[in-house]
């Protein structure tokens, strides 16, 4: 366990001593702020209209959590697709390029310890990104009041949404780690994992005009479909299984790839 933590610590150190983590977290913060403001404005507009027309059914459906927070979270998931490849691409590819991979591979370590150490650090940065996103509903809680006088934000729904976002981020990082293990080039690793994650994210596009088992299969593989229940405040087993098994698959294949270096 100690080498795992040592690798994770060193990796976190180099994340934050180089600009990469700062730049990516700034991207997340900037766009989260942008979309937060946008959906808040839209919410205010719709609310004003609903009051103008005194439409009770519309007023009943107005919900700060769904209209602002869930929307923000689903938009930020797209940024996971962009940020995770950039953050994870360097994890192993950089070691190979700078020849420090030789140090790791000739130290008394198992490949699984190298992979887990790297992954732990990546998970830490992803947690920081999700924490930044979580700051926005927090601000909203402080500044808003619900119809009953309580908080205007339903934290159960926000909580499951954030959990979904983090699980998707965790899976994205493990996919990135796998591609980082496969190449010496950081750019190639980042690009290939971006293509894979992007394809998984927009998979439902391919189901247009398709019916039957093919459609079911593609929908089941879609990373965005599995986020919907989380954003609506539900934790469903199939979604948990999807993200966790994607994470496990990425880590397992990355471990096999590192072990494979000893064989060829």
């Amino acid at each position: 366990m100690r080498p795992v933590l040592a690798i994770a610590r060193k990796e976190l150190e180099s994340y934050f001593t180089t600009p990469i983590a700062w730049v990516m977290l700034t991207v997340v913060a900037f766009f989260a702020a942008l979309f937060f403001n946008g959906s808040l404005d839209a919410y205010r507009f719709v609310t004003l209209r609903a009051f103008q027309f005194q439409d009770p059914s519309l007023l009943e459906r107005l919900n700060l959590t769904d209209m602002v927070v869930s929307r923000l979270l689903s938009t930020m998931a797209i940024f996971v697709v962009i940020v995770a490849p950039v953050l994870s691409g360097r994890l192993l590819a950089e070691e190979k390029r700078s020849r420090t991979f030789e140090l790791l591979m000739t130290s008394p370590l198992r490949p699984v310890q190298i992979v887990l150490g790297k992954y732990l650090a990546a998970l830490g940065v992803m947690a920081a990104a999700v924490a930044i996103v979580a700051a926005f509903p927090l601000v909203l809680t402080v500044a808003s009041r619900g119809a009953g006088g309580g908080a205007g934000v339903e934290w159960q729904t926000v909580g499951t949404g954030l959990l979904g976002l983090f699980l998707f981020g965790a899976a994205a990082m493990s996919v990135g780690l796998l591609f980082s293990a496969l190449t010496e080039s950081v750019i190639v690793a980042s690009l290939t994992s971006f293509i894979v994650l992007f394809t998984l994210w927009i998979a439902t596009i391919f189901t247009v005009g398709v019916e039957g088992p093919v459609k079911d299969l593609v929908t089941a593989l879609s990373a965005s479909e599995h986020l919907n229940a989380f954003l609506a405040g539900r934790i469903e087993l199939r979604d948990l299984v999807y993200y966790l098994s994607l994470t496990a698959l990425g880590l397992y294949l990355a471990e096999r790839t590192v072990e494979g270096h000893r064989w060829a």
Partner: protein
Amino acid sequence: MIEVSRLTKRYRDLVAVDDLSFTVGKGEVVGFLGPNGAGKSTTMRILTGFLPATSGTARVAGFDVFEEPLEVKRRVGYLPEQPPVYDALTPRSYLRFCASLKGLPRQRVKDEIDRVAERTGVTAVMNRVIGNLSKGYRQRVGLAQALLGDPEVLVLDEPTVGLDPLQIREVRELVKSLAGRHTVILSTHILPEAAMTCQKVLVIHQGRLVDFDTVEGLIARHLPGRRVTLDDIAFLEEIYGKLVTAPPAVAEAAQGAA
């Protein structure tokens, strides 16, 4: 301590190491000599478990490097051709990182880092960022890493590359002081270095072993009748020239005759 038997490494069509066999006893310091691309680094990478051999076996401290890599890696300190240092870290945090990888007992880490820094002469730069250090310092930080934990076996791939003459002398003294308690394999292009620091010299040419003997043995065989002292270092150049310019077949015959 190190037993290499019929070791062969092929990269597609290229044969990097060809049927190499030799043994190194405990406490011996052995120098690998050979032109660039002779297979020195490849052999060292196989011995440290970084690369697998195509065929043949290598045992270090009684453990097969492929079957029991962790046991071997625990006992070997390795300085690769390019020092495996992280530019963003300071030597102190780098060595602390390496100590954790090697699983050194926590309470010993600080003293151990101070010890290897002292021995390799990097104490003065311990808190500077490695990326800003000169080549010689980077090389010595890499060497310090290999010495961490006082491993039984040291594999040093060109340890004096990038050092100035005074530093070369320091590293040479360091390697000499390791003899006896440690088994050392080092590769070098600098022939006097091999003569001065190593008890035995192993000459590789085109992946094959062309000669392996003590310095005295090499002199007796290749320069019969010549009286040389260690101050007179040109002799090794002469022997080396004979061994690596001759076609392998001739060299083999010479070896066979010996």
